[in-house]
């Protein structure tokens, strides 16, 4: 087991290198550079060149990459050209915000999507199933930003139930933090709940046809036990993969929602960094996101082993 984890982590290293090279190259393909973005209206070619020399932007691209990579290996992700703040420090302040949002959305998604999937699989072909499918499709097709704006309008502006936007760290005021985060988490969660529901449903439908489910019924077990203990546990595998992938996506993909609710998260930071050609910040964020993805996938694999005894001892 331990060797399996170690092997997976070793395989992750070339992945990370490849991603870094790729993103570095892509950034250089973009027109403009951070110095241009910094200089604004007053563009004295002499000054621009001096600034480029200062940040090493006149060096060949591979020298730039290697000097960045050297820093990373020493635990230094570089400094934002725009703000002068170390990238690691920026990430350290923004990441918890996004992680909190991602985790809360996932809780919504799981508690809505999985039960809905089970119910519509068990009651396949009934009105309940169709209703759940309609709701799920709506969840998938309604854009997050629109749902966010509507919720702000109704819940915050009209009824003053929850704060409309902003962010409060849970360490500062736990309940206020929950209150500000619950709407964006719900908005993000509904979209995920829809795909979770569809996956749970199809996986449950496959498993419910299996012989051992019939065996469980023949034993005289109550139907809820047949469904939860015998069918659902076997149907979980693809659902767990999906949860891991969705969570990885949430780390980088909550841009629109963060924008609507003005949450100072990771997504917003990436967009700002790309626009200002803040190379070090983009590189750092991509690296952290990639690591997040790899960790989530590894966790999903470990969850398989816990869920499936046939994989144990390998």
């Amino acid at each position: 087991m331990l060797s399996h984890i170690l092997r997976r982590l070793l395989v992750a290293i070339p992945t990370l290198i490849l991603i870094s090279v790729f993103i570095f190259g892509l950034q250089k393909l973009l027109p403009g550079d951070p110095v241009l973005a910094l200089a604004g209206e007053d563009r004295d070619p002499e000054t621009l060149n001096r600034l480029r020399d200062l940040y090493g932007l006149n060096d060949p691209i591979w020298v730039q990459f290697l000097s960045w990579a050297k820093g990373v290996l020493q635990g230094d992700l570089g400094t934002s050209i725009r703000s002068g703040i170390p990238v690691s420090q920026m990430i350290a302040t923004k990441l918890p915000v996004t992680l909190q949002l991602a985790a809360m959305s996932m809780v919504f998604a799981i508690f809505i999507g999985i039960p809905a999937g089970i119910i519509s699989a068990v009651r396949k072909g009934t009105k309940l199933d169709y209703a759940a499918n309609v709701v799920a499709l709506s969840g998938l097709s309604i854009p997050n930003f629109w749902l966010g704006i509507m919720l702000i309008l109704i819940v915050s502006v009209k009824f003053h139930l929850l704060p409309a936007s902003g962010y409060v760290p849970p360490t500062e005021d736990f309940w206020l933090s929950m209150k500000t985060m619950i709407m964006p988490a719900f908005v993000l969660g509904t979209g995920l709940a829809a795909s979770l529901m569809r996956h749970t449903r199809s996986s449950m439908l496959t498993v419910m046809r299996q012989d051992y489910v019939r065996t469980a019924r023949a034993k005289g077990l109550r139907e809820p036990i047949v469904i939860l203990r015998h069918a659902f546990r076997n149907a979980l595998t693809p659902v767990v993969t999906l949860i891991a992938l969705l969570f990885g996506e949430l780390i980088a993909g909550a841009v629109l929602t963060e924008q609507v609710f003005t949450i100072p998260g990771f997504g917003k930071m990436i967009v700002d960094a790309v626009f200002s050609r803040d190379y070090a910040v983009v590189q750092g964020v991509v690296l952290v996101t990639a690591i997040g993805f790899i960790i989530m996938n590894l966790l999903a694999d470990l969850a398989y082993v816990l869920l499936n005894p046939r994989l144990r001892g390998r």
Partner: protein
Amino acid sequence: MTVIVEAQDLGKHYPVGGNLLQKGTSLKAVDGVNLKVHAGETFAIVGESGCGKSTLARLLMRLMLPTSGEVIFEGRAIAKLKGAEVRALRKDLQFIFQDPFSSLNPRMTVAQLIAEPLEIHRPNLTAGERRKEVGRLLAEVGLRPSHMDRYPHEFSGGQRQRIGIARALASDPKVVIADEPVSALDVSVQAQVVNLMGDLCDQRGLTLIVIAHDLAVIRHMSDRIAVMYLGRVVETGPTDEVFANPRHPYTRALMSAIPVAEFGATQSRQHLSGEPPSPLAPPSGCSFRTRCPFATEICAQMQPVNETVAPGTEVACHHWRDVSSVSLTIAASATGRSPGAEARFAMYRTALANQDSP
């Protein structure tokens, strides 16, 4: 002999095709089946694939509800049972499934799988007593109790079928229905499992209903037999009687298809031509008439009713008297052997006799 399970005019029809405007036809998987199974006997249901054997088994077990007719278990119609009564029925009526690989939940240990029926049907056992009971059941079916914490994938097919049997026995049932219990197993393992089931029936006084297509297995195990064709029972009777004097032309064809294991043996085969007709559009009258060498006009017009032709033997055929009069000799010995071979066999027999006598 008391009747423990009885099917009365049992039918399972599936609607097929059809849409909003048009009514579809119905597939008659099981059609008007009457059976009486006596307590303590081993009753076999035999027929080719697609004849409705498994559907019948599921109806008897109430894993499915019939579209017509009724199943009576110990004097009660099981279709009318509700909730808790159905679970109580599961205690007395258990099922052994065909496929030992897919019918055990891969996520549960053998101990958990076998303990589950105990949890439901004998709730006053403590966890320790349950484990003890699981061990006893495993030993009873010839497995090591020390293996109870393993998962199903760690066992072979035969062992898994033994686990399935132990699971079925856990609730101490009165009737066990086995749907093709050995057909998924290797031939060498089949005999072991068949013998195990026979022993368990004797020891526990179980009533066993076996569904099978393997006539050798049936003959070995069962006391009485019902032959099915296209959803209907065409002949019922004591196994020895049916094997010795098959009266329905279909039964005859089945029996004559059993290979005889003797050198040079020839037998008059009654060949069946063609495939069984589609159950979607069964022939009029007797459903076997399209393949029956004895068929006449009456077979197309009237569905034959069950007639008692000998004590305990019922046949559904208009012409059973004519069928019986044509001899179906199983010429097992002598014919077809060359004189040389006959001489060698004679020498072999004397050698065997000499070996035994001194």
